[in-house]
């Protein structure tokens, strides 16, 4: 056998045409460089937002790999078809009459050349792509990858090496096909079908068939083996498949080269081997992290939701202390994984509010999850505290008392009586349910959903107040957290006044904008002075809302609470409509009429002043932001007045709503476990970054990214830069470097 192998090596070496053919593989490098050039040019001509939506070019080999495969397949095929073409095979068979030996003896030499040449080619192709992309390669994209991936990125070295190995595999496939077909043109046709026609045909299929068929194409196996995309197969199965293809092709060749009558045995052995190496890893790789879901997914009953959303129902106990007691049904929603890539698991989007429906959010923000869904099912829930759940009267939950800023112990007690009366009105419909609206119960509901999904672990995006159930889940089920993102979350650990400092900064920006903008109603005046004078005067003598019946009047505290949302969310540039509206309202209020505020407050709350929604307080007040007593309130108020020259008091608005609350605090803030949690990611805007950053600071190894702009709920809102960092973290658990920021997209 050694002699024959050496002889075949000599045969291969002594044909200079093989060298010329190998030289043709430089075309693959040109293809990589050429397409990278086109991508780079397209990239340069797009806006930042459009650039972020580019698909990643990965290791850059994919664009030329079909060319490389063609060369190597031809190299392999010619090793045998040239013998048939020249009738040399007859001479060879007289010298080596054992036919399978003759065929298989070609393997080592061919494989050795292809292994070396494949590696060289793969690295040159990668280097060419990266060189042409240049700095652009580092751009992080919405799908969580950079435009180009350098060898230092995880899995990329492996994917390049495996791409080179796959070229050797393709050379052997070419040899097998050549032996089976016995003619160079015939082999060319078959190999063209395998390397070019089938992958192109697969791309014309509808999803998810396209992804499934594509996963089996040779060109997509290297990425799958390296575990960096390419399709739906797990690495072991993809590797097994590549080897099986080689065995299958060589089997076909060995079968056809055998003399008639001896073929069945060869065919049987080869087929068995091919099935073995492909089926065993595929079976072994059957995702152990995901069991079957016990949820009955169906179309959602609410026809206002997007069609792609699937819904299911789950029963959870009202009181988790009595798991076998009374239950309620929760609606779970899912944007299913597209199947474009191997499914990695489930991302649970925790809705904010409290009181928001995660199912409605998924529907509204489905576009933001498009890239994530290539690898994850995205699941959310209309949690127990969803205000339109129907158990408690909706109208009651979306209304509430007007909160005042008590100056005396008596006023504090009066506020408590008003709060309690409002709470009791809603609570009466179902006191047991009303008293179990805390975020820990919401977190336990999420755990029930995890179990029903059959997932070993979950990844989370906690949005706004959803941060609180996210924290409680982390405390209660730390081992079930694969990853967690806090987006504009409120930190229960943070001093409230401290947390509002960014609002002060926003106020400063508003004032600066007004000074610079002629259309601002207060243009040319000192906005800060006007504002402070207005709120001070209104706290002494409230500013009436003209034409309002019954009579309503804005205290300074009311004005701050009504203005705060507009201050931090001015609306789209360059008009900043809510700042424009706010300046007008301030101007009118300074003139003695608060209807500028009342007008827009009424639009969103149906109340002339901002009510304290019972539907939010029923969760807030159990989660423990309230005051122990009047003294604590007084101290906190002083602290706020020191820190917040323009907006003091707004930090106390939510805690004040819990004065006199009928249900006890059942879920006070508690520290996150010191060990056992994976690193987290916090994201946020100018105004809500600090909360997220404060939470993740408490989990070792975590990171935070600030968007240097305004907004709240950045991922849901489709902020591409934030989405790119979050997706990268959720997909590969890689966190941005310390100090990473997202700059506002320059258009």
């Amino acid at each position: 056998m050694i002699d024959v192998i050496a002889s075949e090596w000599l045969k291969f070496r002594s044909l200079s045409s093989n060298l010329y053919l190998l030289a043709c593989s430089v075309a693959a490098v040109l293809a990589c460089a050429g397409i990278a050039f086109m991508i780079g040019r397209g990239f340069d001509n797009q806006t930042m937002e459009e650039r972020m939506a580019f698909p990643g070019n990965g290791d850059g080999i994919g664009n030329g790999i079909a060319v490389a495969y063609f060369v190597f397949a031809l190299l392999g095929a010619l090793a045998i078809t040239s013998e048939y073409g020249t009738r040399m095979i007859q001479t060879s068979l007289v010298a080596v009459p054992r036919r399978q030996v003759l065929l298989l003896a070609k393997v080592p030499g061919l494989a050795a050349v292809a292994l070396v040449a494949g590696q060289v080619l793969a690295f040159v192709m990668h280097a060419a792509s990266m060189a042409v992309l240049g700095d652009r390669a580092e751009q992080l994209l919405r799908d969580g990858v950079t435009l180009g991936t350098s060898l230092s990125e995880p899995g990329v070295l492996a994917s390049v090496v495996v791409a080179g190995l796959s070229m050797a595999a393709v050379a052997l496939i070419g040899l097998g096909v050549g032996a089976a077909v016995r003619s160079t043109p015939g082999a060319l046709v078959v190999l063209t079908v395998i390397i070019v026609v089938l992958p192109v045909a697969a791309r014309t299929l509808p999803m998810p068939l396209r992804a499934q068929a594509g996963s089996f194409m040779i060109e997509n196996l290297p990425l799958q083996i390296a575990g960096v995309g390419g399709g739906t197969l797990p690495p072991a199965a993809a590797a097994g498949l590549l080897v099986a293809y080689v065995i299958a092709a060589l089997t076909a060749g060995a079968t056809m080269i055998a003399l008639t009558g001896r073929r069945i045995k060869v065919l049987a052995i080869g087929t068995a081997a091919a099935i073995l190496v492909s089926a065993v890893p595929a079976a072994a790789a059957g995702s152990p992290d995901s069991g079957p879901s016990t949820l009955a997914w169906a179309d959602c009953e609410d026809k206002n939701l997007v069609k792609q959303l699937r819904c299911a129902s789950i029963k959870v106990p009202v009181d988790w202390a009595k798991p076998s007691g009374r239950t309620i049904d929760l609606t779970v929603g899912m944007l299913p994984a597209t199947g474009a890539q191997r499914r990695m698991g489930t991302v649970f989007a925790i809705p904010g509010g409290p009181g928001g429906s995660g199912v409605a959010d998924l529907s509204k923000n489905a576009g933001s999850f498009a890239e994530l869904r290539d690898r994850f099912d995205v699941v959310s829930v209309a949690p127990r505290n969803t205000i339109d759940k129907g158990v408690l009267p909706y109208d009651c939950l979306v209304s509430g008392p007007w909160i005042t800023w008590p100056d005396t112990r008596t006023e504090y007690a009066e506020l408590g009586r008003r709060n309690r009366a409002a709470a009791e009105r809603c609570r009466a419909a179902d006191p047991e349910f009303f008293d179990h609206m805390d975020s820990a119960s919401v977190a336990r509901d999420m755990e029930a959903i995890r179990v029903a999904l059959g997932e070993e672990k979950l990844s989370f995006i906690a949005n706004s107040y959803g941060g609180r159930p996210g924290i409680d889940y982390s405390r209660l089920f730390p081992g079930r957290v694969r990853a967690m993102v806090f987006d504009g979350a409120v930190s229960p650990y943070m001093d409230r006044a401290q947390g509002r400092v960014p609002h002060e900064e926003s106020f400063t920006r508003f004032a600066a904008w007004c000074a610079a903008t002629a259309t601002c109603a207060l243009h040319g005046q000192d906005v800060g002075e006007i504002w402070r004078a207005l709120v001070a005067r209104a706290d002494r003598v409230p500013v009436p809302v003209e034409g309002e019946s019954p009579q309503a009047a804005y205290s300074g505290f009311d004005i701050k609470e009504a203005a705060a949302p507009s201050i931090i969310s001015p609306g789209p540039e360059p008009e900043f409509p809510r700042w424009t509206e706010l300046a007008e309202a301030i101007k009118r209020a300074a003139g003695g009429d608060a209807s500028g505020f009342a007008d827009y407050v009424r639009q969103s709350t149906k109340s002339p002043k901002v009510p304290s929604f019972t539907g939010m307080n029923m969760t807030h007040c159990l989660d423990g932001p309230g005051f122990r007593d009047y003294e604590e309130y007084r101290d906190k108020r002083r602290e706020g007045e020191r820190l917040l020259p323009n907006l003091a008091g707004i930090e106390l608005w939510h805690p004040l709503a819990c004065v006199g609350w009928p249900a006890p605090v059942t879920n006070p803030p508690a520290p996150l476990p010191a060990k056992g949690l994976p690193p987290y990611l916090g994201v946020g805007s100018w105004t809500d970054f600090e909360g997220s950053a404060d939470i993740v600071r408490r989990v070792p190894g975590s990171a935070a990214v600030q968007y240097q702009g305004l907004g709240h709920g950045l991922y849901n809102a489709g902020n591409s830069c934030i989405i790119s960092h979050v997706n990268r973290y959720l997909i590969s658990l890689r966190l941005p470097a310390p100090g990473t920021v997202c700059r506002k997209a320059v258009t």
Partner: protein
Amino acid sequence: MRYGDKVAVDDLTFTVKSGLVTGFLGPNGAGKSTTMRAVLGLEVPSAGKALVNGRPYASIPRPMRSIGALLDAGAVHGGRSAYAHLACLARSNGIGRARVADVLDQVGLTDVASRRIGGFSLGMRQRLGIGAALLGDPGVLMLDEPLNGLDPEGIRWLRDLLRSLADEGRTVLLSSHLMNEMALSADHVIVIGRGRLIADTGMDALAGHFQGDVLVRTPLPERLAGVLRAHGAAVVTEEDGALSVRELDAARIGELALSAGIALAELSLRGASLEEAFMRLTEDSTEYRTESGTGTGNRATRKGTVR
């Protein structure tokens, strides 16, 4: 052994002796190549076995050391040099490089050893093929139509080479469809037609078996014919009036003419060509024949196809 419904070789048994150059003769399509290919395992007989030294060819380790074969001088890759071609074959049977150089020298290709075979003439390719057969210094040589394409000098060289190989005690079998070539090359001849054995005989015996006649020209052909017939000769008058005489040798014819007082214009011995003998032998078995009956039809179409 069949191709489709056509029997190529049918129950063919013969022995090739060592120390002799044995010719393997038959018209085109008689089954010569098929027989050789069956021996080398390139064809599978539909019944029976082709064994070499008692075992199937395919089971012989390093078979080139036992049998040297040339089936088709064109069965080479034109892109290789003569040296590389032989070196590849030699390596597969564990034969050293030195032997490659020796063989190249022996077949007279040393000067062109580094040239691509693609540029070789048919004669050079024959030499290369013979060189390949000699590589393993085998005890048995089996050459299919080795004289094709060789120039007269080449033919003489090959005859001498085969003779010397046979003299060393080797077994040499060479096929041809041309009897005349064989007459000078072979000691023994095996003739087949339509896959069946027709003759297995020494070359001398074959020639003797088909003796020639004596050509006689005379102004009095009828009279002489009468005299000769009276002495037991078989006489045929040819178109130009010459007499073809058998059963009497030339000397006796001269004597009889002299005693009868008949002048002779010509008296010559006409040797029967081996070609003619071969033609007569195989008349009934020629597979492909043109209308004139010369027996030069197409070569067996399947030749050179490895199945």
